[in-house]
């Protein structure tokens, strides 16, 4: 009893107020998600009951079934396409960005600093600025409507790859030089040292970056919008935006919200599983 009292004394009214504000804010942050999920399970009429019914009277799974079975909204295909793109982009980051990061961190060669500056400079050149010339370039390569356009530039360090390279380079630089010296004495060649000695040392950084690249690729909209216009090659974000061109469906809120839920579920699952890494990434990015 006395213990409880002392705890209560410590809690000042101001702290309680702050806490209430934070909780209220959190509710505001969650409201759109809750409405999204609840609407995706309603029929069209009950959407406009006001104030909203948070738990639908009758749960209608058919909205999701439509997105998976209709030939118009081909979400299984969008998921498959997105997965291919995401996996290969993550893979590309593993191979090319980490090699470059290692090169910049631990190998010594002429013009290294200049080249590294070039890599860093790309951070201020977003894809939005290059939309038009890049579209022409993709057309020249005949990559329009292929996954190549979605995968290769990003795998080779363009558009955000610089961030991965920068972070991995920090990690490699922090590793003790003895590791390589020991490998050299053992007669390991440079690539062997890299692949079998150095890479395993930065596993954690990889995990964090994989999630980062996953998030960026999964959510990507601008670039696919420009280079992909064949629905067979659509990624999930384009599939959701398909609603904008069907005015009858645009007011079919349940279907629209079901599609939005489908766009969010994978990334939210990954986030909740690995949320430490997400925040860690962000903090690392803040330190540059």
């Amino acid at each position, binding site marked *: 009893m006395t213990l409880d009292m002392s705890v209560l004394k410590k809690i000042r009214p101001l702290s309680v107020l702050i806490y209430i504000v934070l909780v209220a804010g959190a509710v505001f942050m969650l409201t759109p998600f809750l409405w999204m999920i609840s609407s995706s399970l309603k029929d069209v009429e009950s959407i406009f009951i006001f104030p909203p019914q948070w738990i639908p009277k009758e749960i209608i799974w058919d909205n999701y079934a439509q997105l998976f079975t209709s030939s118009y909204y081909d979400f299984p295909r969008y998921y498959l396409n997105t997965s291919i793109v995401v996996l290969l982009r993550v893979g590309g980051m593993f191979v090319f960005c980490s090699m470059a990061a290692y090169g910049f961190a631990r190998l010594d060669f002429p013009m290294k600093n200049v080249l590294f500056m070039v*890599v860093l400079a790309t951070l201020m050149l977003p894809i939005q600025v290059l939309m*038009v010339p890049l579209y022409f370039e993709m057309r020249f390569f005949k990559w329009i409507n292929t996954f190549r356009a979605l995968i290769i530039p990003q795998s080779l360090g363009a558009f955000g790859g610089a961030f991965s390279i920068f972070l991995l380079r920090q990690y490699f630089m922090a590793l003790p030089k003895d590791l390589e010296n020991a490998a050299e004495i053992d007669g390991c060649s440079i690539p062997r040292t890299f692949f079998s000695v150095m890479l395993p040392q930065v596993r954690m950084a990889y995990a964090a970056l994989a999630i980062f690249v996953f998030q960026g690729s999964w959510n990507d909209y601008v670039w696919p919008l420009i280079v992909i216009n064949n629905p067979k090659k659509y990624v999930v974000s384009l599939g959701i935006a398909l609603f904008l061109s069907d005015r009858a469906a645009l007011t079919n809120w349940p279907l629209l919200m079901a599609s939005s839920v489908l766009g969010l579920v994978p990334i939210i699952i990954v986030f909740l599983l690995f949320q430490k890494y997400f925040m860690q990434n962000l903090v690392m990015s803040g330190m540059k």
Partner: protein
Amino acid sequence: MNMDTRINSTNALRGQMSPRRKLEIAWGFAFVGPVILGILVFMGFPTLYGFFISTFKWSIIGKNPEFIGLGNYLRLINDPQFLKALKNTTVYVVGILLFSVPLSLLLAALFNRKLPFGEILKITYYLPVITMMVAVSMVWRWVLSTEYGILNYFLGLVGIPNIAWLNDPKWAMPGIIIMSIWKGVGFNMVLFIAGLKNIPAMYYEAAEIDGASSLRQFLRITLPLLSPTTLFIFLTTMMNSFQIFEQAMILFSGATEESTGAGPDNAANTIVLYLYNNAFKWGSAGYAAAQAVILFAILIVITSVQMKLQKRWVHYDA
């Protein structure tokens, strides 16, 4: 490390290279080569090519571009729609800097203590950051709906009459800003929290002994010591905000016959959206490329300011 590099490089120039050294150079190039190639092909070349295109009257489906020199740029400065897009984008950037950044600092300050379920609350604020902009924009079409939207419902509780967020030119940009605050506040919040953690506790302990109030501590200790983080957040937020595109496009598309996504009276038109529409809806690739060049110039200015200021901060620290 840096010293080493320099010595090695000069040695290399003198041609006194051991075989191991030669190999290292070769491998160095081999390791960074693919990425450098990718950057040159997919970013370097398009940058130059963009300048080139911008000097042509170039229809995206047409076959014969016509060289017009600075014609597209002259047209830009006389194009009320472009100037409006420029203005809207600036309003957006200022809005985000004025509201989103301080709000995230406030949240970070509030979270910078032990709270029951603090981690879960923090995750809640961070959740919108990781989500797909297209998907959440679709939901915000409802949040901002005049008669059925939850935002007007909340505002109605405190007696504010319905606002036509998506149909009234005055409210279109504020609507987008509110949505973007919701989407992005958690991002800067986490950065600020990290910045706060880096402030040594001894400063506060000393202030506590002097009997300084929390507000005074915040103003005298937190803000000055946090300023490198704040500067970084300000400038990156500014850079990212100038590129706003998807929110406007999704929120304002498809409702009426026009599908430019520029909103009522083009009140939600932004630089990138106008650029996109010019290139891919109206097919004027050259004109769009000129707009991209302007956007590029803006981003370069911000970056160079960032570099200048950062150097100065480093100076102060030393």
